[in-house]
C-alpha cells in the first residue's frame, strides 16, 4: 500500500515517509449486568509526510481507494508553508528490527461468544445487590505498514484486548465508583480476570466504611492507579518536545540526581504481550529501550525524528502518528524498576491494597484516584486535587474510605525520597508500576 505512494512521491520531493494502518475492533458491552450491545468497527488510513525543498508537509486520508497523486499534492501544499528541517530518515540497513511477538492468534480469532463469555464471567463475579456493574470487552487487530524513500520498511500485525469493569454503588447521596481494566496483546487468562475481580472487591469492601480524613503533611501510598498525578508531570518533562521548547524543568539536567536513587523508569517497546510494543515506531525507527530515569538520575529524553533533528540528537524510536497530522512523540510502555525496594512487609501478599506499604504508617492515606488530574500547571510538578477514591490508614491498618479531602504536593519534591516500593507491581494500561509510599504529602480536610 505505501510502496505506490512513496513511488508517486519520490520524483517530486526530497524524501518522504508514510504509514498505513488498518484497525478492526469488536466490542461487547454489558450495562447494569446485562449484555446490551455488540459492535464492530473497521478503519483504514494512510498518512504521508514529505520534505520538499527542505520544508516538511503532511497529508492523510481514510478514503477507501486513495489516489496517491492527490495525497502527494496535498502534502506538497502543506510543505510549501512548512518549516525547514534537516530530517534524516532511517535507511534500510539502519538497525535490525527486533522480533517481538505482537500478534496472538487466539486473540485475533476469538469469537463473539468468547468475548461475551469473558464479560459475563466478570459480571457474575462482581454482582452485588447494591451495585450496578458495567463491563466492556474490546478486541482489536491492527495491520501496520511503514516505510520511507530511503528504503526502510516495517510491517507487523498486532492484537489487543481490553476488558474494563466499573462498579457503581449509590447509597443516598453517597456515590462510590470502582473501576479496573485488563489490557494485553493476548486474551486474559481466568487468573487475570480473577485478579481484576479481586482488585475491585478489595477496594469496594474497604470503602464501605467512611471515616474522617486526617490533616497535615503525611505519608501517602499512591496505588498504581493513584500515581497518575505524580507521573504525569514527569512524562511531560521527559519529552524531547518540552525540552526543546524550553518549558521542561528537566532540560539541561541529564545525569543529575533529582530522584530517589532506587528509582529507575524506562520506556520499553520490546515487552512481549503488551499492545504498545512494536518492532519499529511509526517512523520506521527500530524499537529500543530508553532509560528515562536511571537510579534517580535524569536519563534520556524521548524523541521522534523531527524533534531529534531540531535538537541535534537521535530519535529514540518514540515516533507516533495517526492518519491526520504529523508524527509526534509518544511513549510506549513505561516501566518502573526499583533497586532494593525495601519497606514493604515481606509477608504482605502482592494483592493487598497498599502493596504491603502500610504496616508502619501511623496516620496517612492510600490514594487510588484523584479528581482533575491533568488540569492546571502539570509540567511544573505541582498538583492539588480532591480525592476520588482514597482510604485512611491508622496504626498500620486501613480504617475506611475518606471522602472530603484534598491532596497536594510537587511531584519533583516527593519523588526525591521514596518511602517504599510496593509488592503489587502491575500493568495499568501501558504503565507497569507498584504502589509508591511518598512522605510529606499535604492532606487537607474539606
Amino acid at each position: 500500500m505505501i510502496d505506490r505512494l512513496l513511488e508517486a512521491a519520490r520524483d517530486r520531493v526530497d524524501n518522504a515517509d508514510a504509514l498505513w494502518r488498518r484497525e478492526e475492533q469488536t466490542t461487547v458491552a454489558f450495562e447494569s449486568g446485562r449484555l446490551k450491545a455488540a459492535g464492530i468497527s473497521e478503519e483504514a488510513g494512510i498518512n504521508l509526510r514529505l520534505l520538499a525543498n527542505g520544508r516538511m508537509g503532511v497529508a492523510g486520508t481514510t478514503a477507501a481507494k486513495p489516489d496517491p497523486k492527490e495525497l502527494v499534492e496535498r502534502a506538497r501544499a502543506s510543505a510549501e508553508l512548512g518549516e525547514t528541517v534537516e530530517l534524516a530518515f532511517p535507511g534500510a540497513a539502519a538497525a535490525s528490527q527486533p522480533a517481538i511477538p505482537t500478534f496472538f492468534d487466539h486473540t485475533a480469532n476469538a469469537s463473539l461468544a468468547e468475548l461475551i463469555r469473558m464479560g459475563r464471567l466478570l459480571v457474575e463475579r462482581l454482582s452485588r445487590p447494591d451495585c450496578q456493574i458495567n463491563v466492556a470487552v474490546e478486541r482489536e487487530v491492527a495491520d501496520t505498514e511503514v516505510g520511507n524513500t530511503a528504503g526502510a520498511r516495517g510491517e507487523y500485525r498486532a492484537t489487543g484486548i481490553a476488558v474494563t469493569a466499573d462498579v457503581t454503588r449509590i447509597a443516598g447521596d453517597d456515590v462510590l465508583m470502582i473501576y479496573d481494566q485488563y489490557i494485553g496483546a493476548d486474551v486474559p487468562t481466568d487468573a487475570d480476570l480473577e485478579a481484576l475481580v479481586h482488585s475491585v472487591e478489595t477496594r469496594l469492601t474497604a470503602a464501605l466504611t467512611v471515616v474522617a480524613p486526617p490533616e497535615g503533611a503525611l505519608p501517602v501510598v499512591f496505588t498504581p492507579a493513584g500515581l497518575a498525578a505524580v507521573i504525569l508531570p514527569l512524562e511531560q518533562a521527559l519529552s524531547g518536545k518540552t525540552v526543546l521548547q524550553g518549558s521542561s524543568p528537566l532540560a539541561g539536567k541529564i545525569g543529575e540526581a533529582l530522584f530517589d536513587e532506587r528509582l529507575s523508569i524506562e520506556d520499553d517497546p520490546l515487552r512481549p504481550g503488551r499492545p504498545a510494543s512494536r518492532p519499529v515506531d511509526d517512523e520506521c525507527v527500530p524499537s529500543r529501550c530508553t532509560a528515562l530515569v536511571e537510579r534517580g538520575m535524569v536519563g534520556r529524553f524521548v524523541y521522534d525524528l523531527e524533534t531529534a533533528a531540531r535538537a541535534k540528537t537521535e530519535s529514540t524510536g518514540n515516533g507516533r502518528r495517526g492518519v491526520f497530522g504529523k508524527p509526534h512523540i509518544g511513549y510506549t510502555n513505561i516501566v518502573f524498576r526499583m533497586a532494593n525496594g525495601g519497606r514493604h512487609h515481606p509477608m504482605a501478599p502482592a494483592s493487598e491494597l497498599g502493596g504491603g506499604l502500610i504496616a508502619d504508617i501511623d496516620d496517612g492515606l492510600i490514594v487510588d484516584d484523584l479528581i482533575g488530574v491533568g488540569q492546571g500547571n502539570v509540567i511544573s510538578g505541582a498538583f492539588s486535587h480532591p480525592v476520588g477514591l482514597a482510604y485512611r490508614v491508622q496504626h498500620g491498618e486501613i480504617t475506611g474510605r475518606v471522602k472530603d479531602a484534598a491532596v497536594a504536593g510537587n511531584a519533583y519534591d516527593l519523588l526525591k525520597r521514596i518511602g517504599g516500593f510496593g509488592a503489587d507491581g502491575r500493568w495499568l494500561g501501558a504503565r507497569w508500576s507498584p504502589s509508591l509510599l511518598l512522605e510529606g504529602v499535604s492532606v487537607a480536610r474539606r
Partner: protein
Amino acid sequence: MKDRLAESLKQSRADYTEIRVERTWSSAVAFRGRRLETATVSEDQGGFVRVLNKGCGWGIASFTSLDELPGMVRRAGELSRALRLDAPIRLADVAPQTADAVLDLDGDVRGIPLSEKKKLLDRYNAAMLAVSNAIVDTQASYRDEVSEVWYVNSEGASLYQLRPEVVVSGTAIGRRDGDIEKGLESIGLRKGWNSVQNFDDRFRVVAQRAVDLLDAPRVRGGAYPVILDNELAGVFIHEAFGHLSEADFVYENPQAREMMTLGRRFGKPVLNVGDNGAAAGLRGTLPYDDEGTPTQDTPLIKEGILVGRLHSRETAAKLGERPTGNARAISFRHPPIVRMTNTYIAPGKQGVGFDDLIGAVKLGVYACGAFGGQTMLENFSFTAGWGHMIRDGKVAELVKDVVLAGNLFQTLDRIDHIAGDFTWNQMGGGCGKGGQFPLPVTEGAPHVRIEEALIGGDV
C-alpha cells in the same frame, strides 16, 4: 447519497435500522513557539449503522469505506440477533423528520488558501510572543471544518446537515527561574473564516496573564465566599451538574434515580439551569440529534427544583419521559450516547451586576477562566485560570493555583446570588464521555456567587 442510504435501509431485515454517514473537510495550522508545527488539509469520511431487533440487543458497525455499507448493515443485524435479552430495549416515539439543515458557512473555509490561515495564526502567535521575554513557549492552533452529515432510519427519518466550525486557541507559557505559569484562551464557533479575524487582543491578554501569574502569590487554601466569572460558572454547571442530568446515569440504576428524583430541591429559588440544543448559532447547537430527534431548550432546574433530564430515545422510554434531543455521537466512529449541548445557568434579576455580588464580601475569592474540570458524580474539581482576592467588597490582588472542588449537592445549594450579565462561553475544546472527546458543547452563565466553597491552593 440519501437514495443510496435509503436503498441500504430497504435491504435491512432488522426491526429498526439507522444509518449515519459523515464527510468532513478540515484544515489545521499549529505553531509552537516561533515555529510552524503543521499546516495541513484533511478529508475524512465514514459510516455508522445501528440496528435493533425485538428481544435483542444493539448491533453496531462503523467503517471508513462506504462501499462496505450494505455488508455492514447485514453484520450489524447479525450482531444484534446474537444478543438475546430478557427485558427488551424500547425506544421512545419520535415523529420521523425529513429536512435539510444547511448553516451559513460564514466565509467558506474550503475556499481560503492555507497560506492565509497560516498568516492569521502567525499574527496571533506573534502577539503572544511579543508581550514579554518571560514568554518562553507558546502553542497556537487553528482548526476549521465543513462537515456534511446524512442520517436515515427505518421509521422514515431522512436528514441532511451541513455545518461549519472554527476553533482558535492559544497557550502562553511564562517562565522565570524555575517557576512556570500558563495562560490559555480558546474560541470555538459554529462559523467560518469571517468570524476569526479579530482575536489579536485576546491573544495579548493571554500572554500577559501568564507573565502576571509569575509574580502572583498562590491563593491560600480555605473556605471562602466565591464568585465565579461567566466562563468558570459555565464550566461549573456543566461538570458539577450537567453530567448528573444525563439520563444514562440513572436509567438503569434505581439508587441513582432516587438521588435524582424530579421534584428534589437542588438549590435556592434563584437557581435556574437548562440545556438548549436549539439555541441559535452556538457550537453545541444542532437542529436534530444523532437519532433524528429535534433539539429543544430543556429546563433542568427551575427555581431550585429538579424538573428535567437529558435523554436519548432509549433512556426516555425506560423512564417514561419524552426524548429531549440529547443523543449525540462525536463522529461516525461512535454510537450516540446522552450528551449535553449548550448548558446554562439562567441570568438572575436584570440589573443585578457583578458589584452587587461582591459588595457584601469582606474576604473572598473571585475565580476566573477555566483550565478544565472533571466530575466524579457527586464530587467535582476544576481549575480556574486565575483568581483575585476580594477584600472589603472590592476586587484585590491577582492569585494563582485556584482549584475549586467540592460536593455537588452542597455547592449548588450554596449558590445564593446570580447576576443578570449572562453570556455564552464560546470556547474550543469540548466534553469527554465514554471515549468520545472532544464533543463540541457550549456553556453559558452570568456571574455567580457561592456563599461558601472550598478553594484548594496552598494546602
